[in-house]
């Protein structure tokens, strides 16, 4: 348990710093900044206390908002994916999934892709809707969600594969 707290704290600090110092400055094609910090919320232990998990997701988002000067948009987006993560898990790993049985390092590439990209797109849709905050720019929101979502998904998948120790 203590080990898990330590691992998650280190992961939190590393991902936030990487996000703030590197990924917020990419500005690919002028407006595409990937948000791989959300990997922290995706790989948070599946068996953790639900309320604690929601609260930590909220704090993660709020930290990003502080660095990004963006009000509460990251907090809202992180909270939404934290709340809907069980649904994404059920959709990806089948109806008979059990929280404790699934270890992300052990699932197939395809399942990992579906799980990560589905939550990435939900996160980005909430994020950019709140950022633009204007329903008449819906095309712009969708365009930004799509392109940034692809970029973030690839990065999250790469990080996830690189840093997960596979235990057979």
């Amino acid at each position, binding site marked *: 348990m203590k080990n898990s707290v330590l691992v998650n704290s280190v992961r939190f600090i590393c991902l936030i*710093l990487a996000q*703030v*110092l590197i990924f*917020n400055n990419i*500005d690919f094609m*002028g*407006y*595409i*900044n990937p948000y791989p910090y959300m990997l922290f919320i995706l790989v948070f232990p599946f068996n953790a206390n*639900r*309320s604690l998990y*929601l*609260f930590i997701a*909220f704090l993660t*988002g*709020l930290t990003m*908002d*502080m*660095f*990004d*000067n*963006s*009000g*509460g*948009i990251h*907090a*809202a987006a992180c*909270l*939404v994916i*934290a*709340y809907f993560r069980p649904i994404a898990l059920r959709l990806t790993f089948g109806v008979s999934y059990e929280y404790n049985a699934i270890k992300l390092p052990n699932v197939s590439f395809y399942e990992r892709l579906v799980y990560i990209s589905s939550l990435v797109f939900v996160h980005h849709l909430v994020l950019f809707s*709140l*950022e*633009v*905050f204007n329903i008449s*720019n819906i095309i*712009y929101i969708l365009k930004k969600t799509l392109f940034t979502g692809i970029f973030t998904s690839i990065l999250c998948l790469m990080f996830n594969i690189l840093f997960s120790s596979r235990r057979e």
Partner: protein
Amino acid sequence: MQQIINFLIRSKNFLLFAFLFFISLVFTIQSHSYHKSKFINSANFLSGGVYESLSNIQGYFHLKTYNQQLLDENARLRENESVLRTLVNQKDSLAIYTNAESLFKYIPAKVLKNSYSKTDNIITLKAGRRDSIAPEMGVITSQGIVGFIEKTSTKYSTVLSILNTNFKTNAKLRSSEHYGTLEWNGQNPNVMTVIDMQEQAPVKIGDTIETSGQSAIFPKGIPIGTIENLELDNSKNFYTLSVRLFNDMTSLGHVYVIKNNDLEEINALEENNTNEE
């Protein structure tokens, strides 16, 4: 009663979710209206410190550009100085420049964090209250306007960038006194729009747009950009102009914060006027 408590316990996760989501929505809505004060901003010890160490490293890579900008600015200032000198030395002219105290004070500041890809962009500066910076001061570079100060802490401050949908200021043509409202539509970081420019104004593509000096935040005559495109609105009374900015907002290193020494006096006067109405 028992059922209510049971219900609360059963749906405690949903309630927590709804509560936290509500808080983040409040923060978001606050960030979209400029006059509300923000709780979460980057002018604080933690994020300011992180951005400062990042900017210290990045500064080295831009030294060449900054030096060039400073050289250009020095050259231009020298030119202006010589013009002023000849004006002052003419015996028959009124001595308007000799005893007039400078109205505006320029405070240099370093940009710690610049953003330009969002719809509401905020810039963080390494200069705060202890450098006598206060909200509502204008921020410019040698090339043009950047925004105005929004929040300050002891060592840091945040700037509401011109690339922010909440930003509005008066802008006029360099060639005449016709003015309109300068704003940003949230998309291209190099192009802004001027709306409500009178139809009688002699606008041409390629004309220069500058600040009008009506707002007490920016002095008169700070360059903004050149007219790239113009069209009349539906009522045929006003022009809408697209303006290509002189300033490259995607690459800001050092900026000047403008302190208007008469700001308090002007504000007091305007407040008196509105009270009397």
